[in-house]
């Protein structure tokens, strides 16, 4: 896809996305933050226009980019990139995984998910060693396929 960029003096910038499925798409970013998305099917017909404010545009962009999340509810944060899921889970005192190491739990083999980081109190352990034991209150950042999340939750997070 070719993208052409143009100055619109006094208004902002315009990005022409060329031919998409027989339609011409242009995005106008106003100096004031407003974004317009123009969709025209060519010819003399009037274009369809979607106008968004700055916040709406960023949210839409995140959804289109596959990285949509709502920062307010951190525990629920998840981001799916091409079928890949990134999720945050917090361990309770009675979670099955507490007090055992990643190796003992055989997380990767049994749930096909990977713990990529542990947020413990004020420290962050990235790429934890298999010998790392999990504590109550740990926030685990996990990566895997969406369908494997349930198995991970049962094996590590649920009450033992």
């Amino acid at each position, binding site marked *: 896809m070719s993208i052409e960029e143009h100055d619109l003096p*006094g208004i902002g910038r315009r990005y*022409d996305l060329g031919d998409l499925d027989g339609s011409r798409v242009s995005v*106008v970013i106003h100096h004031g933050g407003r974004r*317009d998305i123009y969709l025209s099917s060519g010819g003399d017909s009037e274009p369809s226009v979607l106008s968004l404010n700055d916040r709406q545009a960023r949210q839409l962009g995140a959804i289109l980019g596959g990285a949509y999340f709502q920062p307010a509810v951190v525990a629920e944060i998840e981001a799916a990139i091409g079928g890949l899921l990134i999720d945050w889970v917090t361990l309770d005192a009675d979670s099955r995984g507490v007090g055992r190491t990643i190796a003992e739990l055989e997380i990767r083999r049994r749930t096909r998910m990977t713990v990529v980081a542990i947020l413990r109190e004020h420290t962050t352990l990235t790429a934890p060693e298999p010998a790392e034991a999990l504590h109550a209150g740990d926030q685990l950042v996990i990566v895997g396929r969406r369908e494997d999340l349930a198995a991970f939750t049962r094996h590590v997070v649920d009450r033992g």
Partner: protein
Amino acid sequence: MGDELVALGGAFLAAGLLARVGRRVGLPTIPFFMLAGVVFGPHTPGLALVEDPDDLALVATLGLILLLFHLGLEFSLHDLAAGGRKLLGAGAVYLGLNVGGGLLFGLALGWGGREALVIAGAIGISSSAIVTKLLVELRRLANPESRLILGIVVVEDIFLALYLALLQPVLGNARGAGEAALEFGRAAAFLLVMTAIARWGSQWVRPLLDGRDDELLTVCFLGFAVLTAGVAHELGVSEAIGAFLAGLVVAETGLGEQVERLVLPLRDAFAALFFFAFGLTIDPGDAGAVAGPVAAAVLLTLALNVLAGGLAARMHSFGRRAAANIGLTVLGRGEFSLILATLAVGAGLDARIGPFVALYVLVLAIGGPLLAARSGPISRTIPTRLFPEVAHS
């Protein structure tokens, strides 16, 4: 004091509420601000908010200063360079036709040479505010010809700055060639000094402005703009060009975007009062005397705009729809025509210029957008063979 406050508040409200009515049907605000001044002024029966237009002189001038200051801030040679030679060509064709035609028209009116010079600008220069807003509201920003239209407006803005600078000495009451030459020299010197400051000396102005604090920045740039305008006026260069140059200098300090954001609400408020105050000076009774010239000027402008739009479209191989869009969008007349009329009236030129420009702006500021919105059906009356459309992006 109470009287003045009632007048000022009433002026703001009258202008705002009347313009809101127009806004509802998609019309620009400028003609309605002016109309509010006519309706609530001393020359019409009923409530007169302000008896003497001079009562609002200071706030109205502040509006004029902020309009030009903002224009200077936005002014960018980069925009022009980015458009390339073709864009410059379209702008030059537009100005040549419209300002040239306006000058001939002004001379034909026989009101005088200086009057003809003012009419040339008032008829020849489109309203950036109306054109820009129209493109956004008619949802035409994605059209290929819209860049060309905005380019023409940029060329017009540049022309306006030069034209304003050279007009003031002509408007002054110079007696004899020697005095006129002196005034020209003074204007040119001021222009050169300010442009030089904008180009090389913005670091001397920078300490005046503190970008870390919006409040203090507003107070200081306002002071700088008004002071420069005042000094310009004292030197006989006109406060308008002084304010424009102040904007140019501030744009070069690197605080341009921040100042632009802060000045916008101030500009909107005081510019409304500027248009309102202009309306106060207009006696609808004079409309009859200028109706003929206005009708002729409107027809001339319409013809020249359609012609210029057609030529610009041909230069860029656009189709007939784009040709109609260009010609009918740049038709809008507004703030610049009114600024020129204010300067002319202030300089004591033929008194008919006031009502002439007022009526002319009223017709085109309202008629222009109405025609532009219907450019599709209108364009279908143009023979296709005039605009053989060439595929382009």
